[in-house]
């Protein structure tokens, strides 16, 4: 979709009518622009319902509509519109997709097999689209895509007598759509509470706007400045690299005196710095920008000139960057795809690093959870429900999660086996025996067998004063557990590891893997590992980033 699309008319002549071929191009433009802004629409979700990816659903629906017509040689506008409607119907995904398909259905029906579309036909078709969409529900909820459809139909009706130029008409319709979208929070309280506009309406706006941009010859594959809800603004990624001229991160919350002219706003900011993001909510805008030192105060001065500044935060990026390199890498794992009939493994992982290790060994789904954050049965079921296979193995990796895993097996219609791994190392040992195409029962047996082949050590701190198995522990002390049993309490992590390893008779094993927790720095972990290697010279000592909470180290001895 990134191939450049030549503009329909570069010097914006009046267009009095458009035919089927032009509709084809307009649909493509609408789809492209919607896809470019898909993420913006996705972030507008209010309900955490599973089908909440409005942007994605609308893109898929429009894609199906475009697939239907992309090879068509049809020139008749009405017939082309019917093809679009058919494609949209077949590809409709989610609530917004279904409504979108109804809009196209009504649009097409109004036109029958009209050879070319003129402005009065366009208005008539938009009205019919609105009517059809409204018929599809007993209790239409206002402040949604339905309202936007209603408002653009009304606008089209108003301006038909005024202009014969399609560009003019479309421009006014797009403006009406924009106004209507901005007004949705006034009609629907949940939107207002969440500080967002309606996602479906916004999607419809992007489709129409894409058509207009195409006619005007504007770019369709570069998103305009992204204005997103405040709650969705995530700055984590922007920290990864610091380029020259990005010395400081400045975040300004401000309330503009007049409505914000985004293009001018962005234009001014671009002269000051990079990584510009603007968030909007409840009349307040949040500006995020990276600036070189000389421009440190320019964004603040500028926003003060156009509004009231409510809050300013400045952070030194270069300094942060140095710290960031030390902290745990929270990147989500990339799980391996699974094919029907294969055996899929779901692993419960207490940290992003451990999840990545499991993913690299071939698990198909990862559930976050571990000590003091046990996942629910539902979270486990959800993880594998949509996998395209019926053979599922669950690795709970914690003795407290085995029950939930068993419950997940009970409720699922799939063929589920729980390999009762009580710790991460056990789970990893079991993964070594996975043969995705193997016989289900024998693979499960192999994996269960592997559990016993590894010893698990854990280094954590005592949450209270206690005496177990003759070991006296004070609150806050570092303690070592071997296979779940408390074996010693030590003043520091390194000593705990050493006595753990000697208790485990690590000298008789081959490999010692240390998964360091979220509160241990990489450099720290590396130096500890070096000392351990010095004590156990015949064994291989490996360090992996585990990112697990509470546990300084999880140790696999095999």
């Amino acid at each position, binding site marked *: 979709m990134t191939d450049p699309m030549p503009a329909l008319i570069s010097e914006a002549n009046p267009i009095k009518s458009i035919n089927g071929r032009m509709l084809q191009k307009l649909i493509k433009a609408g789809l492209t622009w919607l896809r470019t802004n898909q993420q913006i629409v996705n972030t507008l979700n209010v*309900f*955490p*319902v*599973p*089908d909440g990816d409005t942007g994605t659903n609308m893109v898929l629906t429009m894609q199906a509509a475009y697939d239907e017509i992309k090879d068509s040689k049809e020139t008749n506008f009405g017939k082309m519109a019917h093809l679009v409607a058919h494609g949209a*119907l*077949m590809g*409709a*995904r*989610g*609530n917004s*997709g*279904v*409504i979108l*398909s*109804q809009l196209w*259905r009504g649009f097409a*029906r109004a036109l029958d097999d009209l050879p070319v579309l003129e402005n009065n036909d366009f208005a008539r078709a938009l009205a019919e689209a609105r009517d*059809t969409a409204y*018929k*599809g*529900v*007993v*209790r239409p*909820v206002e402040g949604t895509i339905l309202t936007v459809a209603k408002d653009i139909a009304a606008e089209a009706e108003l301006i038909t007598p005024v202009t014969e130029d399609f560009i003019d008409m479309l421009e006014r319709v797009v403006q009406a759509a924009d106004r209507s979208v901005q007004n949705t929070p006034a009609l629907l309280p949940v939107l207002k509470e969440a500080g967002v506009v309606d996602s479906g309406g916004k999607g419809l706006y992007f489709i129409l706007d894409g058509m207009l941009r195409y006619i005007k010859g504007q770019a369709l594959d570069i998103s305009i400045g992204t204005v997103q809800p405040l709650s969705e603004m995530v700055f984590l990624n922007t920290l990864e690299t610091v380029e020259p001229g990005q010395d400081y991160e400045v975040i300004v919350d401000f309330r503009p005196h007049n409505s914000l002219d985004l293009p001018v706003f962005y234009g001014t900011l671009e002269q000051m710095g990079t990584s510009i993001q603007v968030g909007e909510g409840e009349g307040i805008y949040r500006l995020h920008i990276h600036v070189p030192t000389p421009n440190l105060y320019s964004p603040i001065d500028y926003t003060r000139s156009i509004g009231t500044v409510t809050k300013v935060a400045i952070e030194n990026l270069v300094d942060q960057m140095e710290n960031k390199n030390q902290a745990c890498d929270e990147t989500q794992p990339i799980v391996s795809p699974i094919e029907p009939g294969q055996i899929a493994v779901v692993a419960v992982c207490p940290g992003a690093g451990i999840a990545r290790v499991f993913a690299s060994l071939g698990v198909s789904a990862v559930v976050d959870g571990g000590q003091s954050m046990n996942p629910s049965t*539902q979270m486990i079921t959800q993880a594998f429900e949509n996998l395209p296979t019926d053979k599922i193995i669950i690795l709970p990796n914690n003795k407290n999660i085995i029950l939930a895993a068993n419950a997940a097996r009970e*409720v699922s219609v799939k063929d589920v086996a729980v390999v009762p791994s009580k710790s991460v190392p056990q789970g990893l040992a079991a993964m070594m025996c996975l043969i995705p195409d193997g016989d289900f029962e024998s693979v499960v047996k192999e994996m269960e067998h592997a559990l016993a082949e590894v010893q698990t050590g854990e280094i954590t701190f005592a949450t209270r004063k206690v005496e177990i198995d003759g070991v006296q522990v004070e609150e806050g002390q570092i303690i070592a557990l071997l296979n779940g049993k408390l074996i010693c309490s030590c003043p520091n992590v390194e000593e705990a590891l050493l006595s753990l390893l000697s208790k485990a008779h690590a000298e008789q094993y081959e490999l010692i893997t240390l998964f360091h927790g979220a509160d241990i720095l990489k450099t720290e972990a590396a130096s500890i590992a070096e000392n351990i290697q010095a004590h156990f010279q015949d064994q291989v000592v490996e360090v992996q980033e585990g990112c697990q909470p509470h546990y300084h180290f999880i140790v696999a001895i095999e």
Partner: protein
Amino acid sequence: MSNENLQNEKIPLGSIKVSPNAISNIAYHATLESYGVVGFTSKNLVNGLAQAIVKDPTYGVDVHYDGKDIDIDLYIIIEYGTRIKSVAHSVSNTVRYHVEKSLGIPINEVNIHVRGLRISNLD
């Protein structure tokens, strides 16, 4: 209601009981706000007299509680020309979301029975 059991939750001050009737009410309203659904129809066709669309919130919604799980069955009529699978899917999601949000009790199953299509006008 086929089942007069009450949902029971013990709290230190006493207990909270939610009747299936209340649950079916929530499900009913959530369904009618879902796009594509134009009405409910009675569960069995004899009662329904040729699939008449009913307006009573207890018709067409069946809440089962077996002491452990809550299952909801919805007997609905869908607008002709919508993609039934997508509509059913989003009804199921919406109902589950709303009932779970109000009750705080997980729902086991939401079954959608599409009992008919309403044809508003012919294409």
